[in-house]
Each structure stands twice: as structure tokens, then as C-alpha cells.
């Protein structure tokens, strides 16, 4: 019997020809990523277990990307950056992207892609649940806590239970009013917020391979919202072109065998799908936009690893160009690279940045921003009963700051259309 791409990559990193779902194996890790919230405690555990002056297993494989609580006066948050900086200096870490310098990148998952750390066939662990994003590059990537990350930091290895795989096939041609966000919200709504627990979510089909790398990242990014262990899309020429433009490091193209066994398979025809939202207060609380159209909003938010990449803003700008938003609309680029592209690329003779400014949007610095609330002075954080529509990934109570606030998750097209009218709006009604 054949193996899935996930099984093959894990087997290869455990020194075996094959592994079966349920096997507990120790794997060699190619890349360990951490950020400002989980990095300091991870470092604390690493030093406790391996010694104050212990060396990390391989400094070239450790990537530290502060991104969560950056633009804040909170002294504890700022202390975390100092801890990272000291550790990076002590261990002469090449891949530390320091705050307040030209090297600062913004959201870790987007930076991992931009800086060439995502390579097909590799294994990446990150101290962040959205580490599954990197699976869009045909690699095994998942989130872990501080203790596991400290174990990797000292040994380069970690135990993994091989997951079953659920396969989602998207056929047809994606209409202009749909984005990858609509596809993944539909999957999560269909299988439920624990429908993917302990499982790999593998995405396949012509519509998936028609997607750009950024759109593929949106798909795998939200695998965790269904409880998925990892999200994965096999690498193709688009992946190779993206990766080779950013790194010379080796990679390996891996695909699932034709006779691989899946615990679940579902086929979607994207040409018949509708824009959707996740209603408060769960990411699997799916509804079509037409069902909730007209819901009054207080705020729109465009940003995060899920919906703050360049193409997310390109989509939103097509709707906002030449118009004014009717509610407070926060625009937070995921990375400094995205910010730069917004200031360089144009639409209708204006930079995208100017399109958003002229539409009345509030512009933020590249970071995770208010996706997870954060310190009280975070740009875009909710404080009261705000009803928000957002391109982010979670809407549990209090997620964006206030327990009394309500968050609808949607695609950048839907969020932009809704910002225009001050109520949830189907992008089909505004797209020309």
C-alpha cells in the first residue's frame, strides 16, 4: 500500500522507508521557528534542561522572527525582544530578524516563505499553531509548545505521532468573487472544529494548483482551525519557482502515492461555491455571505498571516479603489515586504497604499496586530462590543481583545465589500 506525502516526509526524517498512521517516531528537524511570545520561555526551558551555556543543536536551522507584540509600550512585551536579542547575539544566530532594524520582517509564517525557509520535503516545527501554513510548500510543518521546542533546540529531534490524512480535492475554475479563504472556511465548516484533529489535511485538485503560492498558504494556514496536525499541498513548478528565487538550499519534491490510503476524501466544485463567513464565536460556524448579508458592522480588519499578504490586499484594493469605507477599517500588512509592495505596486495610477488611505482606511505596521488582541494598546484591538469582519483566522470570545466583541471571519473580498457598506456584503454585488 502506498503512503501519503505526509507519511513519506516523516518516514524519510525518521530514517525509515515507511511509516503507518499511529506510529510514534522521532524525526530530525530541518527548521525550528520561534517568535517573541514563545521564544523567551522556550529559551528558558532550553537553558534549564541543557545548561546556561549550552549550544543550540544547529544555529543555521533556528529561525527567530519577533512579530506578535512589537508596536506596544508594554514593558514586558519589550523585555521579550531584549531576551531574544541577547540570545541571538550569544549564539551568533544568522536568522534572527531584529525589531527596530531593517531586518525586521513581521508575521513569522509569511516571513518564513519570503526568506526561503519553506522548502519542499523538509520538516519544520514552530512555536505557533499557524506553523501549518508552511505546508503549502510540500513540506511537513506544524505547531508545538515551548517544552517541545526546547527539546528540538537542544537535540534537533522531536517525537511525532504519524497522522491519518484527510484529502480535499477542489475541481473547476475559481470565480473572481471567491478566494482560498472561502474554500478553507467551507472545509472547516463541513468537518467541524475538531473534524481534523490529529489528522493531516491534504489539498489537491486543479483548482488548488491554479492558486498562487500566497493563496495556497491561506488554505494550509487554517488547517489548525479544524484541529489539523498539518496542512499540505504537494510542490509543483510554481512552488519551485518561488523557492528557487529565495534560496539555494536543497529541497525534494514529494507526492502522495496513487494508492495511498486516506481516512476521508471530499471533492468540491469551486465553480458552484459561494462566498462564506465564519460567524461568531467559532471558526467552524459557517454561513454563506448571503445568509448574513445586511448584518451591521462597527469595524473591518484586513491583516494577519491568513489575510494580510500582498494578494489579499490586491483583492481588497480592487473593491475599495475610488470608494470610501463606512466603518473603521484597519489595514495591517503581514510583513515589511508586503508593506513595501503596497507602496510600489499601483492600481488605477495610485499605489495600493494610497488606494487604502484615500478610501479612509487606518494603516498599520507589519505584525500580527490585533488578530489575537494582544497588549491593550495594540492597533485595531477591540475594547467593547464591536462587531468586526476580519480576514484573520479565529473568532473565539475575546480573540481580538474584548470578550463582548463579535468577530466574523471572511475573505479579503468580502471584508472589503462589507467595509464599503458598513454591513456584511456579498462581494458579487460590488465586483465589476
Amino acid at each position, binding site marked *: 500500500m502506498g503512503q501519503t506525502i505526509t507519511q513519506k516526509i516523516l518516514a524519510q526524517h525518521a530514517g525509515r522507508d515507511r511509516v503507518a498512521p499511529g506510529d*510514534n517516531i*522521532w524525526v530530525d528537524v530541518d527548521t525550528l521557528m520561534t517568535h517573541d*511570545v*514563545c521564544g523567551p*520561555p522556550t529559551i*528558558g526551558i532550553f537553558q534549564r*534542561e541543557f545548561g546556561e551555556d549550552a549550544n543550540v543543536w544547529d544555529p543555521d536551522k533556528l529561525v527567530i522572527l519577533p512579530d*506578535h*507584540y512589537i508596536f506596544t509600550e*508594554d514593558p*514586558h*512585551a519589550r*523585555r*521579550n525582544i531584549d531576551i531574544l536579542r541577547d540570545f541571538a547575539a550569544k549564539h551568533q544566530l544568522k536568522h534572527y530578524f531584529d525589531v527596530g532594524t531593517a531586518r525586521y520582517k513581521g508575521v513569522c509564517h509569511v516571513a518564513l516563505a519570503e526568506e526561503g525557509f519553506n522548502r519542499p520535503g523538509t520538516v519544520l516545527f514552530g*512555536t*505557533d*499553531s499557524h*506553523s501549518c501554513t508552511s505546508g503549502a510548500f510540500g513540506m511537513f510543518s506544524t*505547531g*508545538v*509548545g*515551548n*517544552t*517541545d521546542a526546547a*527539546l528540538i533546540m*537542544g*537535540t534537533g*529531534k522531536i*517525537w511525532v*505521532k504519524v497522522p491519518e490524512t484527510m484529502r480535499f480535492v477542489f475541481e473547476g475554475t475559481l470565480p473572481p468573487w471567491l478566494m482560498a479563504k472561502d474554500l478553507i472556511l467551507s472545509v472547516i465548516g463541513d468537518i467541524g*472544529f*475538531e473534524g481534523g*484533529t*490529529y489528522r493531516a489535511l491534504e489539498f489537491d485538485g486543479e483548482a488548488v494548483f491554479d492558486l498562487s503560492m500566497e493563496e495556497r498558504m491561506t488554505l494550509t494556514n487554517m488547517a*489548525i482551525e479544524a*484541529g489539523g*496536525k498539518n496542512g499540505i499541498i504537494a510542490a509543483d513548478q510554481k512552488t519551485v519557482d518561488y523557492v528557487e528565487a529565495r534560496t539555494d538550499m536543497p529541497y525534494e519534491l514529494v507526492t502522495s502515492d496513487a494508492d495511498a490510503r486516506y481516512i476521508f476524501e471530499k471533492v468540491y466544485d469551486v465553480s458552484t461555491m459561494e462566498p462564506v463567513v465564519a460567524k461568531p464565536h*467559532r471558526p467552524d460556524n459557517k454561513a454563506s455571505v448571503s445568509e448574513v448579508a445586511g448584518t451591521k458592522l462597527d469595524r473591518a480588519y484586513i491583516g494577519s498571516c491568513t489575510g494580510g499578504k500582498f494578494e489579499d490586499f490586491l483583492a481588497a484594493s480592487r473593491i475599495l479603489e475610488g470608494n470610501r469605507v463606512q466603518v473603521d477599517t484597519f489595514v495591517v500588512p503581514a510583513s515589511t515586504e508586503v508593506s513595501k509592495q503596497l507602496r510600489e505596486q499601483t492600481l488605477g495610477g495610485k499605489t495600493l497604499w494610497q488606494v487604502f488611505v484615500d478610501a479612509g482606511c487606518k494603516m498599520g505596521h507589519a505584525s500580527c496586530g490585533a488578530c*489575537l*488582541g*494582544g*497588549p*491593550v494598546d495594540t492597533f485595531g484591538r477591540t475594547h467593547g462590543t464591536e462587531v468586526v469582519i476580519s480576514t484573520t483566522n*479565529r473568532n*473565539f*470570545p*475575546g*480573540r481580538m*481583545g474584548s*470578550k463582548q466583541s463579535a468577530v466574523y471571519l471572511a475573505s479579503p473580498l468580502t471584508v472589503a465589500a462589507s467595509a464599503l457598506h458598513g454591513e456584511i456584503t456579498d462581494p458579487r454585488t460590488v465586483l465589476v
Partner: protein
Amino acid sequence: MLGDSIDTDQIIPAAHLVYSMTEPEERRMYGRYACSGVPNDQAGLPEGGMPLTDPEAWTSDFRIVIAGSNFGCGSSREHAPFALQEAGIEAVVATSYARIFYRNAVDGGFLVPFESRERLIDQIRTGDDVVIDVPAGTLTHVSSGEVFLLNPLGDVADILRAGNVFEYARQAGFIS
């Protein structure tokens, strides 16, 4: 007693993720704010209005959390099981767990995550006494005398018994 899909933002809201996890004066903040993200009417079922830790206290009066499905879903923050431990919680009994929370609880040795075979949150009230017999794999509701079955701990029992994943890895010879 808590409900379903208690996510990590409810277990420890993001604004609190900045305190030191080692320095005593700061780490006790995690105990104070454990489960402070749970909306008040859902804190301490069936009636609500009973937060895990009183706003003025550093630890909880409770020792065991019983919840519904998908406990610990959301973020990978290890601060979540850590906060419960700091609050004095020794065990969680839920019908199902999100995998990163479960793994963090075990590998960090913060608390024991038991799985109940039945939905207990409709049958037990916050403040009731329960007894967990680990070898027998049962939870007894003292006031009613009812005995509920828990799933065996399985593969993670070795890690829990060793204390945490480092102790386990050393004992098993995976690291020196």
C-alpha cells in the same frame, strides 16, 4: 465545570502572555488569570458566575476542571496548561482535546489530561466533589455515587509518569 471548545484565548488571554514563566512574582499572574477569558455566564457551569480563580486570588479553590469537547483548541501557547497548573489545577477531564494543548500538557508535565467516555458537564455541578482513581480509570461523583469511565492514558502514560518529556527522553536513552 466548563463547556465545549474552551480555546486557549479563554484559558489565558493573549494580553497576559508577557509575564515571566520562571520569576515567582510574575508567574503567579498566570494562576490569577487562568480561564479569565471565559465569558462570566459560562464560567462554572451550570449556573455560571464562578470564575476559576477569584480576581483577587493567585490560585483557584478548584483542583479539577471538567469540560466538554475540543478542550484547549486554538493557539499552541504552552502558557495555557501552565496557567492551569499555576492556578493549582491537577487534572482536566474532557470528552476530547485539541492536539497541541494535549501534547503541551503531557510533555511539560503540567497536569494530567483525562478523556471521559461520557459527557460529564450535564451531570456534575461546579463545586461538587469528585475522585479520580487513576489505576482503575474511573471518576466518581461523590454526592451521587455515580462512577464514570475514563479512557486509558495510553502512550502518554510513560511521559506523565517520568514527569515531563525531558525526563522521559533521558530515561529512555533518547537524550543524554
